[in-house]
């Protein structure tokens, strides 16, 4: 594997646009978790003209609903959930300034178009490697929507969170690139 690229949040558009599909990265700093229910609540709030609980400018969203932390741990198991379920909300959210998304699985063309426009990178973490990924999470703090339980909006302090760029700001897709040499049927 090539050298891993270190990313410190917040992620600027300039840095995001330098990342290429297939790059391995280690992310440190604060990232924000939100999944289905939080996305629904946030886009509904935007539609009503309300402000969101955090300023998403230059931030990274992690599609995550962790298991509860055991006593003494910052977080339980914490792997990515399927990003595609967020697609309906994503262009609206990217217009809020989000520069990175971490999840797993494919995205719709309209999401990729919005990524190109906004300079947003889509990262994949290894689906199902939740106990391992949790090791890079140092702090988990619910910021809003606590009533959503594991779906609450939370701030995660991470150190060397492992991910790979799957769709870059030019729309190159590593899911396609990575499969091609091994596709026989």
């Amino acid at each position, binding site marked *: 594997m090539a050298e891993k690229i270190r990313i410190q949040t917040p992620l600027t558009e300039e840095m995001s646009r330098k990342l290429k599909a297939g790059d391995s990265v280690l992310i440190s700093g604060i990232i924000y978790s939100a999944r289905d229910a939080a996305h629904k609540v946030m886009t509904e709030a935007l539609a009503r003209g309300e402000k969101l609980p955090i300023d998403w400018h230059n931030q990274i969203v992690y599609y995550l609903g962790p298991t509860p932390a055991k006593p003494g741990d910052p977080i339980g*198991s914490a792997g990515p959930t399927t990003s595609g379920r967020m697609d309906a909300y994503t262009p609206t959210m990217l217009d809020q300034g989000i520069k990175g998304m971490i999840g*797993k699985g*494919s995205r719709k063309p309209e999401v990729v178009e919005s990524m190109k426009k906004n300079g947003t990178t889509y990262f994949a973490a290894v689906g199902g*490697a*939740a*106990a*391992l990924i949790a090791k890079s999470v140092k702090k988990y703090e619910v910021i809003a929507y606590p009533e959503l*339980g594991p779906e609450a909006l939370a701030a995660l302090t991470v150190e060397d969170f492992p991910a790979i760029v799957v769709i870059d700001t030019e729309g190159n897709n590593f899911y396609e690139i990575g499969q091609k040499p091994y596709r026989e049927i």
Partner: protein
Amino acid sequence: MRNIKTEEITEVVAQLCKEAAYYLPDDVYEALKKGRATEKSPVGCDVLDQIIKNAEIAKAEDRPYCQDTGLTIVFVEIGQEVHIEGGLMEDAINDGIAKGYTEGYLRKSVVGEPLFNRVNTKDNTPGVIYTQLVAGDKLKITVAPKGFGSENNSGLEMLVPAEGVEGVKAAVMRIIKHADCNPCPPMVVGIGVGGTMDKAAYMSKKALLHRCDEHNPDPNYAKPEKDLFEMINKTGIGPQLGGTTTTLAVHVEWGPTHIAGLPVAVTICCHACRHASRTL
């Protein structure tokens, strides 16, 4: 007649929920190692290394293997000579799920109603419970939590008998290719052939309980299992980011069906093919 107390069922189900969430079955772990040894993609190797390490951490530290600790599927084989004492068996099982998911720090992922009021039930109940009446005086409980990243990629086709085994294989491949990288491969593929639409789906779930290193005892079915295993591993999907390890095992369960029908159901399970059993 043998009496089994509901308290005992609750306790065993709670324990099995935790075991299933923390400890990947040995045969799945070995299949991952085998996949890693033959994987051709460097990125695929890296992904498999992370998945294998994850299994080891989860087991050593009693942590959920995946944060999606699933909708709890419970298969119960109840001997005809068993008498359940102290209440309803289904309540005892759901009490066990609530206990296990709470005590075990597992994620509660169930909403009480699917469409208009998606509110979390906060204890992962109710489970999906399948009960089968069998001979004897034993009670076998299998807890198989099912993550929905993979469940959402499962599918079913109602074929016509003329399509035969080639039609079945083609239907499975359509479902796998449509699923693509999304169900957290490498996946375990459960296939139900025959029965009715619902029976085929049930059989495809049960098929996931077979060991990864086990093949169909009926050579007529072992052959398409082997063919599909090879075909799926040639799709390039690989361990999420491309490669040659797309599936760890393919299992077929079949049942009698109607003269006019050939239902085929495919349950895709991610590499977290979790299940734990106990016989009382």
